């Protein structure tokens, strides 16, 4: 049993390491990607300056609009990595034929899904911390009231929850092939509904109510709670973990069904 588990861990590590090696081979793209994230923050930094003095709504305890938006932008990057990047990755594997070779190996569909999602998740969470750090050093973001444990828990549970959404989208792409629009659309919808760059109170009532059904709302609340200390990060984190566990189970099940579907219809390699 132990050796079987250890083999599964090796398989996951192999897939994560492979993605890291592939990402590293595109050095310019890797650097551009990192710079782009920081530029994104910079935009909100200047928007926040233009909006001074404080805007008249509750900013979830954030001392400024920039501090408020930083959490949203950083988490949106995690969400994008967990969905768009993973979806693109699955499609590439499908087109080149590596997906079929992976499926022919002795690994189960859930392991394969987790292996494919592993690197985008780790990279996104790492980037999120990097951006927060850069915002602190260069743009004056304060961490005076930050709970670092809370921030780690919130970002990691958000990453897992978003990866679960990504795995579900990957399953859809396996079956329907073209997911170019689906993943970005999901990102935009979840980002807006969750209150990434504006408080959800400004949404129409029914949209605000709908946002309670999205993991992003709790992700933003948890991160802002941990970052600014104005409210607890524990409750939204627990809800987020609940989303992550259920979402992961659903996503892995859908991915397994999708692989079975492609084997039955002979579309594992289809363009």
């Amino acid at each position: 049993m132990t050796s079987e588990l250890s083999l599964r861990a090796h398989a996951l590590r192999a897939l994560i390491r492979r993605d890291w090696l592939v990402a590293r081979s595109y050095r310019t793209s890797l650097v551009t990607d990192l710079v782009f994230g920081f530029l994104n923050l910079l935009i909100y930094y200047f928007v926040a300056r233009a909006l001074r003095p404080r805007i008249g709504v509750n900013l979830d305890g954030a001392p400024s609009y920039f501090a408020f938006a930083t959490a949203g932008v950083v988490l949106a990057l995690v969400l994008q990595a967990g969905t768009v990047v993973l979806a693109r990755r699955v499609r590439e594997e499908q087109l080149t034929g590596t997906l079929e070779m992976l499926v022919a190996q002795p690994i189960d569909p859930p392991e394969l899904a987790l292996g494919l999602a592993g690197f985008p998740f780790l990279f996104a969470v790492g980037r999120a911390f990097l951006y927060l750090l850069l915002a602190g050093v260069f743009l004056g973001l304060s961490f005076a009231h930050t709970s670092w444990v809370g921030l780690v828990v919130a970002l990691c549970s958000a990453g897992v929850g978003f990866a679960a959404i990504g795995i579900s989208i990957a399953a859809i792409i396996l079956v329907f092939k073209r997911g170019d629009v689906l993943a970005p659309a999901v990102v935009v919808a979840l980002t807006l509904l969750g209150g990434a760059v504006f408080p959800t109170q400004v949404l129409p009532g029914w949209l605000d109510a709908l946002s309670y059904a999205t993991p992003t709302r709790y992700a933003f609340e948890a991160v802002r709670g941990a970052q600014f200390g104005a409210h607890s990060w524990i409750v939204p984190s627990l809800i987020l973990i609940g989303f992550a566990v259920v979402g992961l189970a659903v996503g892995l099940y859908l991915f397994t069904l999708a692989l079975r579907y492609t084997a039955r219809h002979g579309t594992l390699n289809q363009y």
Partner: protein
Amino acid sequence: MSACDVMRAFGKRRVVGPLNLDAHRGERIALVGPNGSGKSTFLRCVAGTLTPSTGSVHVGGHPAGTRQARRLIGVSLSQERSFYLRLSGYANLLVFAQLREPIGRARADVAEIVEELGIAPIAAQRVDRCSTGMVQQLALARALLGAPALLMLDEPTRSLDTAAIDRLWAAIDRRPEVAVLFATHRDHDIARCDRAVDFEPS
């Protein structure tokens, strides 16, 4: 490997079978037939990446497509680009070896097979800089990882030079206990198999 009444159709077009085929330990079977006769489709059914429309395939007593069956199979399908093109051949082999074995054994396995096939210069290069024949040799190396009991090779000599073909057959000869399904058009390959199974276009 035991294939029982295997038939595969795409829509209304029947591509394979119904076909009955058993491959025993150490047996080399050439799958012969013109393009489109279903050889690759049959191999995919055994590999578990394609489900037969009817019939069943078992490998070592396990249904095709299960983890246990896939552990027994080494496969090279006719996908020339089925590698991570930005990575070296060695890195590619190591990824696939680690899906079968712990890291230490995977490294040793890759090193042994690379040496056995004499492909160290190929394995050192990025795959997108390799020719079709070079990639095909990497595909053979990948199929040999993890000491499979059943080796399935889809036209593995198609783009190889004579020396590489000799190395391929030498590698198969060094594994007399391994059952081999060898899809090919070449008489030279067919002659080295124990028997041939004809695939007719449906």
